[in-house]
């Protein structure tokens, strides 16, 4: 089983330096912003992180949550992603958003994940 990484930006605590910059993707016009944020927040926690993270763009705003790895069975994204969509109009990849639309904005309640045969790319 393959999960596809989306929504990891190099400014984030557990992203890669090769990930895109959040600065290039904020302040955009976001259609379905409310639905996107709700979808992101409803992801199933694949791995729970024992850490809190701050707003990486404006640290003075304080703690924004925990960077758990969340999934819907196809994509994997960080737990603090919804915060940036909500507060900075962070634009996500079209393929990711189109998948949310195809699911009618509903994350499955249960996902059958074979952890012995799981890849993240």
């Amino acid at each position, binding site marked *: 089983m*393959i999960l596809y990484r989306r929504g990891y930006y190099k400014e984030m605590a*557990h992203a890669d330096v090769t990930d895109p910059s959040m600065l290039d993707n904020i302040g955009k016009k976001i259609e379905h912003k409310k639905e996107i944020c709700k979808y992101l927040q409803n992801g199933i*926690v*694949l*791995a*729970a*992180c*024992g*850490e*809190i993270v*701050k707003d990486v763009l404006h640290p003075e705003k*304080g*703690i924004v*949550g*925990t960077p*758990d*790895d969340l999934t819907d069975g196809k994509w994997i994204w960080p*737990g603090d992603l919804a915060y940036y969509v909500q507060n900075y109009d962070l634009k996500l990849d079209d393929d990711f958003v189109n998948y949310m639309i195809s699911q009618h904005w509903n994350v499955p309640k249960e996902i059958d*994940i*074979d*952890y*012995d045969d*799981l*890849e*993240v*790319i």
Partner: protein
Amino acid sequence: MGAGFHGGFGATKGSRSSNEAYPGAVKLVKPGPGEEFGKYAMKAPPKPGYTDVIIHGDPDKDLVAIFHNGKWTNIDQRRLATYVKHDLGYKSGPIRLISCGTGKKEFAQNFANKMGVEVIAPSDTVWAHPNGSLTIGPKAYINNGKWNTFKPKKGGR
């Protein structure tokens, strides 16, 4: 390049069956944001002789944090020691501090000093998986960290 994950929703051998109050564990992750960390970590197989203290870490400040009354609050080793000593889950003896990065700088040493017992703590970010497995590393699927051991020192903070 792909990477494997470490733990599904089935139980790990030796894992605790409940995420409620349990002798040998002090869970300071309450309902609210990040609560799955507490639920998953409570399933971790106990380390014989150790009490688990489960709480979110704040590596930037070298402190820990709890979500209380709708907001995150940092707490230092002194307040954490007070919480643990008054929790029914702790009797005595060494502690496994399941909290991000607390074994990287000074927090775990200061906590060990305050408690007067040995503390083991993760060298990097600790991830709790649905089956109770714990990994230490920069990402959930990179398990390259370790549990560092801290002996209490007299005259410490």
